């Protein structure tokens, strides 16, 4: 109990175009983000994913929903290699 908010959120998209499009929209809205190789643990394969920090999750959701780019899945980094899938 008393766990602090996990710091990192990984967004997985359907394809590379969608990752690029999400990146463009997040950057334009000033949401700090990084392109990362898809973590091994997470099943997907377009090669790229987007990492944001937890406090930016709501803003990211708003920006991406408005642009109609819905992630295929969203994962919270619990510790080292452990992820928990959460709703977008």
């Amino acid at each position, binding site marked *: 109990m008393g766990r602090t908010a996990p710091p990192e959120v990984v967004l997985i998209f359907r394809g590379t*175009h969608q990752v*690029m*499009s999400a990146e463009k929209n997040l950057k334009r809205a000033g949401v700090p983000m990084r392109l990362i190789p*898809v973590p091994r643990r997470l099943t997907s394969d377009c*090669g790229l994913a987007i990492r944001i920090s937890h406090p930016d999750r709501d803003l990211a959701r708003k920006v991406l929903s408005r642009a109609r780019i819905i992630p295929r899945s969203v994962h919270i980094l619990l510790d080292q290699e452990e992820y928990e899938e959460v709703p977008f």
Partner: protein
Amino acid sequence: MAETVARALGRAGNPGRSGHALSIRSARDLFVARERLAELFGARDSSRFVFTGNATEALNQAIKGILRPGDHAVTTSVEHNSVMRPLRRMEEAGVTVTVVPAGPDGAVDAKAVAAAIRRRTRLVAVVHASNVTGAIQPARQILRAARKAGAYLLLDAAQTAGSVPLSLSDLPVDLLAAPGHKGLLGPQGTGFLYVREGVPVVPLIEGGTGSRSESDRQPDFFPDALESGTPNSVGIAGLGVSLAWLLRKGIGAVRRKERELLEELVEGMGRIGNVTVYGPRDPSRRASVISFLVDGMDPAEVGRRLEKEFGVLVRSGLHCSPDSHRTIGTFPEGTVRVSPGPFTTGKEIARFLAALRKIAASRR
């Protein structure tokens, strides 16, 4: 543009197949070019632009991806072989095709197209502007007729993309095909097919997309649905650069410049007695293409002399569109074709006219 292609060749990562820097760079080149296409053609969603190797591939994908046995298709007598041949192939697969004849200037009457549409018509395939006569077709009225009948409209913009303004928000055709290497000023080996959202196109080619690799089914989302295999990211990087140039310059400005040159050409050629000019008289109804003949002279000979004696490069013959020449009465010899571009100067037009006067005079 050439420098960008050379630089891209030097690093060529496979886009979307990996997370390393070169792959990201290629993925970004594709994305940027797609976004620029969407901006240039007034489309909201760039993912609907699928890259192809040329216009021919895009047209084949559209035609063979839409038509099924029992369907009816409508087209015109001024289509390029890259439309006619796939349609003839589909006839063998149980599709019926109606070819609407164009007028002697190469323009089709939208009413005649509308009249050819039946209950089973699934596709209307029309060239936006003929590559032989330059005639710009009444796309808006044809789209209206197709919509009313529930048929899809495929527009072949090979001769207009990048040189005649075309906005998909204003003219929401279902399918739009174009090469990258003509009016879009990109390198050879590039082209695109735009597919409006909701238009059900079956992929012509299936395979690796870098997405959904755990599944042995082709993804159904764009652009991956219609883009399998390693793309020509090197060429598309170059196309991205020429698209940026066109966006800065504006297609309206390109069109105005080409129209001025067209008017000078048509007027100048009209004053040479034994030269026949084909296509619409009204320059606003003509893309940047003029077909002509020197009376009693083989078009191939005119082309050869223009190049050999005057250094002017033209194309003579049938221009891969035999039906267009049957329509305007120039089959089987064809015509000579001049096409001024955004970098053509008034001086070059004057030089061409002087050369043509000399060649024509040698015939009198």
